[in-house]
């Protein structure tokens, strides 16, 4: 699954501005997480049309990046994190989606997919 990350200054109105741009372009937000460090932060998003979002946001001169994440159901998380850990794959960060799913950024998503697939675990990639 493609995740979009956007560099934003950590001050009032910046997130609103980002979400407004997405909304005006009919791009739906499925999940969102924010990580902050002092005067700036990164907003991570799962969207219905990530490629278009990148185009739109770049045109607005925003620093945008695309990366691969995997999504699992929250019930499976204890098991998933256990097998990933055993396979030496780190979960760099995570945030929830719909209250029932979790977006995971892992150190090696190809290997992670393989491990999960082999164990017959359900996940979205």
């Amino acid at each position, binding site marked *: 699954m493609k995740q979009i*990350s956007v*560099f934003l200054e950590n001050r009032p109105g*910046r997130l609103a501005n980002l979400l407004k741009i997405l909304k005006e372009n009919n791009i739906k937000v499925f999940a969102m997480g924010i990580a902050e*460090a002092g*005067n700036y932060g*990164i907003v991570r998003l799962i969207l219905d049309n990530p490629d278009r979002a990148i185009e739109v946001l770049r045109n607005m001169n925003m*620093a945008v990046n695309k990366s691969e994440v995997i999504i699992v159901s929250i019930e499976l998380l204890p098991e998933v994190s256990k097998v990933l850990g055993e396979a030496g794959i780190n979960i760099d*960060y995570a945030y929830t989606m719909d209250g029932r799913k979790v977006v995971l950024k892992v150190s090696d998503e190809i290997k992670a997919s393989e491990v999960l697939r082999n164990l017959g675990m359900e996940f979205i990639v």
Partner: protein
Amino acid sequence: MYKLPKSEIEEIQRKRLRQIVKYLYENSSFYRNKLRGIDIDEIRSKEDLRKIPFTTKDDIRDNYPFGLICVDFSKIVRFHASSGTTGNPTVVAYTIQDIENWSELCKRCLEIVDVNSNDVVQIAYGYGLFTGGLGFHYGAERLGAKVIPASTGNTKRQIKLMKDLGTTVICCTPSYGLYLAEVAKEEGINPKRDLKLKAGIFGAEPWSENTRRKLEENFVENAYDIYGMSELNGPGVAMECKFKNGLHIWEDHYIVEIIDPNTGEVLEPEEKGEMVVTTLTKEAMPLLRYRTRDITILNDDPCDCGLNHARIMRILGRTDDMLKIRGVCVFPSQIEEIIMKTNGLSPHYQLVADREGVMDKLIVRVEVAEDFKTDRLTDLVNIQNKLEEELKDALGINAVIELVEPKKIPRSEGKAQRIVDLRKIRGLL
């Protein structure tokens, strides 16, 4: 002859200073006005100069285009102009005698680094309104060297000329020198092995020892710094000798003072400040106490090369750009260099000086690059920490780094507005 004992240079200075002040008083309405209330017979030495007000770049612009000319129009043989980023350009006029003197000084500059009539001198400074090209051209010709008037651009052809004509001396900006070296390599030419460049004479931009090392490793045997500006003829005002420890300024043609740019007070040798120059031999447009806005240090110690003309140190920056933080002079160029080396950042930045209690604070606001490749916060924090550390190393002060979104630093048509000094604003409140 210019290889004179100090006492003779000083004697020439005193004589020429008296002449030029009298000449300006008689021939320039601008200077007659500036010298009002001053007994010009009392201006006999460098110290007496202090009685005379400064001349600034604005004076030249305000009297555009002919207001500072003090010869009959029929005696002018050339104009040069430096680009005006705002308003009028700075136009400088020359008589035949001015061109003669300027050529002589450029010749000296080449001579003191052993350029002679056997050398092939390729001049890759712009020929035109800019003084670089023609200044070196006349100097090298006067020396009897073989001149290639390559001017700027067409880099591959420059390299072909160097190779085919056996160029031994290259004159260009240091950044173009580095670029020439790079392109030569791409063309399969190793300049140090395949070319015969014994010397490179690099000017028109401030540069560092770091750059010298790079130029000497990859391009020329010896990289020398030269200084000049169109208001003072052009290139050839000061030049490094073979000892590469400061630039000899031709004191029989120029008097140098170093001042505190804020108070105008003349500083002692070894103190860093703005260079102020009085031209002693110019005819069409002589200048008294011209504020160059270049920051340097004057060194009057004897030099191992035997020349008794005082030396200025490398140009450290411009007064317009200087920022004083806790007593430390900070130049945007120093910070820029560090930002440029850091991946993930754009070259757009702004320096904000503020006060926290009684302490000065420097905030460096820099844009992340639009194509910055990370979704991980740690990568950004690492960039920030690295920048903080390197600035501390280079400047000796702690700067606060603020990463901002792309295109958030205001852009300007001309010179970038790099500095915001909130201390001044707070001082008024």
